[in-house]
């Protein structure tokens, strides 16, 4: 039977990081059949993390972030073509050029797009940007290089914060408007959010928290915005960084369990249909998927992380060409990183899956620390600021469900290491931008039982 799986027709819809890595992995795993990759952007796969960092700083141009191929996946690339639907019975992917692609197995890696400004007319003003594609990156970088008077960033998540950081590094005035109490609070919780707020202000960012932008002003060109506290920001560039929308609309008629939170799939990347029955020929990977993770209460996780796209794509590819007993689950511990305001922030685990935190090493004052997150007395995540070399240790604690707070002994253990404070994870619906990890079940800090760690 394996012989059959290594042949046939595979279609991958989505030609970004997950799609490319899956295509490579399929060949690596011995797939010899026909492979077609469909992507709605006209470019070969490219890397997005540099778009909010090096590209905005002018250190690289947006057209130079192409992803290196680890091997030629020997695929037919259908770029600049949008998939419009899936016919699961006829096993065909429908394209907007009228063609349809037959498949034996289908992999969906359509990822996310930037959430646009809700008011279409205001969003169309010249000088209003979002940042997701390389065109976005090129256009925004060009505008920043021209030296605007002030940049308004709407949303203080990772993308918004990185944009603000790049602006300050270029010497530009920047205002950040965040609906939550601090930047990064949706992804990292309240304590690290306070550090993020301090860093932004120390670097000269005009940070406004607890406010929303109610209107973008301008006559053809953006001139400023009204805030919910009645104030007004005069600026000539506006970046809307309100998180991402999963690209699932094209699957509306497909019968798959695809919704705003992504495509539900099992631990082996097989998509569920709308009745909760697992398919055996449709797989999903990357930002567009959501999957159950045993370390986080089997909640369905949606991760907008570079590393997850790579790892999940590899598991999906493996499972697409392997018979049942040889299939693998996608159990990787989520990780992500960010650089902003001179800080290196790395995360392992799911910080939003927590009820308490401690600073296990370093301190907020030193701007160098390891924050450990716990849920019901076990370690579930860690975030390091300029201390990334400790991350592997905390990953091990998460993998082994080690007790929270973590054991003592670190040479640079903080005085605060024994004082667990609430992790202060906000309700995602209270954020102006989407968190980069969506826990699609209950909020863990709404705990039903309180377990006190014994030590």
């Amino acid at each position, binding site marked *: 039977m394996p012989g059959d799986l290594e042949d046939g027709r595979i279609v991958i819809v989505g030609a970004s990081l997950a799609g490319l890595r899956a295509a490579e992995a399929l060949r690596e795993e011995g797939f010899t059949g026909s492979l077609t990759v469909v992507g709605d952007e006209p470019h070969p796969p490219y890397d997005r993390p540099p778009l909010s960092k090096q590209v905005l700083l002018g250190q690289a141009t947006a057209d130079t972030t192409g992803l290196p191929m680890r091997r030629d996946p020997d695929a037919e690339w259908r770029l600049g073509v949008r998939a419009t639907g899936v016919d699961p019975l006829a096993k065909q992917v429908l394209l907007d050029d009228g063609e349809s692609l037959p498949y034996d197995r289908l992999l969906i890696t359509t990822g996310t797009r930037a959430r646009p400004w809700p008011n279409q007319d205001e969003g169309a003003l010249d000088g209003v940007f979002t940042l997701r594609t390389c065109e976005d990156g090129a256009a925004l970088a060009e505008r920043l290089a021209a030296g605007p008077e002030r940049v308004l960033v709407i949303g203080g998540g990772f993308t918004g914060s990185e944009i603000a950081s790049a602006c300050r590094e270029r010497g530009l005035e920047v205002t950040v408007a965040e609906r939550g109490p601090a930047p990064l609070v949706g992804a990292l919780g309240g304590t690290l959010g306070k550090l993020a707020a301090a860093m932004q202000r120390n670097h000269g960012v005009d940070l406004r928290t607890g406010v929303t932008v109610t209107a973008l002003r301008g006559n053809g060109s953006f001139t400023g915005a009204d805030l919910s506290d009645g104030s007004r920001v005069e600026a000539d560039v506006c970046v809307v960084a309100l998180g991402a929308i999963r690209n699932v609309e094209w699957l509306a008629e497909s019968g798959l369990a695809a919704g705003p939170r992504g495509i539900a799939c099992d631990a082996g990347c097989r998509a569920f249909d709308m009745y909760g029955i697992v398919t055996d020929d449709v797989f999903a990977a990357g930002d567009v998927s959501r999957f159950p993770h045993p370390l986080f209460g089997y909640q369905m996780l949606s991760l907008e992380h570079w590393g997850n796209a790579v790892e999940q794509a590899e598991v999906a590819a493996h499972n697409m060409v392997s018979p049942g007993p040889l299939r693998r689950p996608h159990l990787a511990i989520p990780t992500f990183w960010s650089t902003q305001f001179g800080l290196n922030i790395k995360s392992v685990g799911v910080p939003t899956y927590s009820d308490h935190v401690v600073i296990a090493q370093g301190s907020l004052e030193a701007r*160098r620390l*390891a924050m450990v997150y716990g849920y019901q007395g076990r370690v579930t995540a860690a975030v390091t600021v300029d201390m990334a070399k400790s991350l592997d240790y905390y990953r091990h604690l998460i993998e082994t469900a080690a007790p929270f707070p973590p054991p003592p002994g670190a040479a640079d253990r903080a005085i605060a290491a024994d004082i667990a404070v609430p992790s202060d994870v906000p309700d995602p619906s209270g954020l102006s931008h989407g968190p980069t990890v969506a826990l699609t079940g209950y909020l863990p800090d709404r705990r039903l039982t309180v377990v006190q760690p014994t030590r």
Partner: protein
Amino acid sequence: MPSETLLARITDYASRPNPYPLYAELREAGPVVQQADGSYLVGTYHEIASLLHDPRMSADPRSRGEVTHKPPFLRLDDPEHHRLRTLAMRPFGPPHNPGRVDAMRGEIDRITKELMESFEAGRQIDVVDDFAYPLPVTVICRLLGVPHEDEPLFRAWSDALVAAADVRPEQDTTETDKAGDQARIEMGGYLVNLAEQRRGKPSDDMLSAFINEPDPALRLTQEELAETAVLLLIAGHETTVNLITNGVLTLLRQPEHLDQLRRDPDLLPRAVEELLRYEPPVHIRERIPLADIDVAGTPIAQGTPVVLVLASGNRDPRRFHDPERFDPTRPDNEHLGFGSGIHVCYGAPLARIEAQAALGALLPHLGTARLVQDPPPYRQNAMLRGPRHLPIQL
């Protein structure tokens, strides 16, 4: 033989030419093997990597109760280690001097050529004395700002310091420790004096940068400057000598790989990585737990020395496919040759460039060369392992 004496057998000079069977025995005996003196040996890749990343593992010899002066940052813990390492890094690497090491390529190539001028077919040379030692010494001297003519002076200090840094279980090390301390003080004094001569008259070297740091918060004290400069000077050449020499030895022992590299010199960077896995200059590092810890099911009490056999981890079959094979095309080669974690070798970029340049330049001469003595005579040191001489016939 019982595994409780493995460390003694590894450090026995008779094992120096080939400690790898002992490392295999160590891995066989388990991930954590207690020694007769109470210390623990760890020789498996994943356990070593995890201990190197464990913030509860101290590099400071004072953590096991040893009374000593404040060590250089290589043997300090965070936050003190971080401060000193960052300061030492400023004139050397990113973010403040990102191009510093890369810009030395041309100079390293020139030094290499000069050293090779007298190499002619039919002649016998000593790879160590004629090539692998003078190259990194010249480079680190230029980088730090040490006059090259003082080399004989610090060679003696360096020998004494390296001897004192060795592990020798069940041996009286009072004499070597004393000689090491003496050498450290003299060498530190010499380097501080050199730096002082450049106060207010900076030239493009690291001692100048240290002494002329304008920000008082970022200035090294005189003691710190002495310790750091001594560390950089020694770490800057003691290890690279062995890397280059081990490289020549490995290639002459494996003519098929020598041919492969001669045909495809683009493989050199990967071949150097493979050398760092297969014949690393640094074999052993010591750590001390600051708390009672558990390693692969074995409880280890706070303060008990844990000896990490990096070179054994590099040949762990649970991490590397066919680990006893030297394969310059090896993919996924995340070796422990430069250590890992907060103390990961910060001279690694320089060592890589030096080894690539040196082996690349030697390659055309090695096709017809042969080893005069195999195994060659080794240096005493088991932690920093390498041949004392490597005579070859060109």
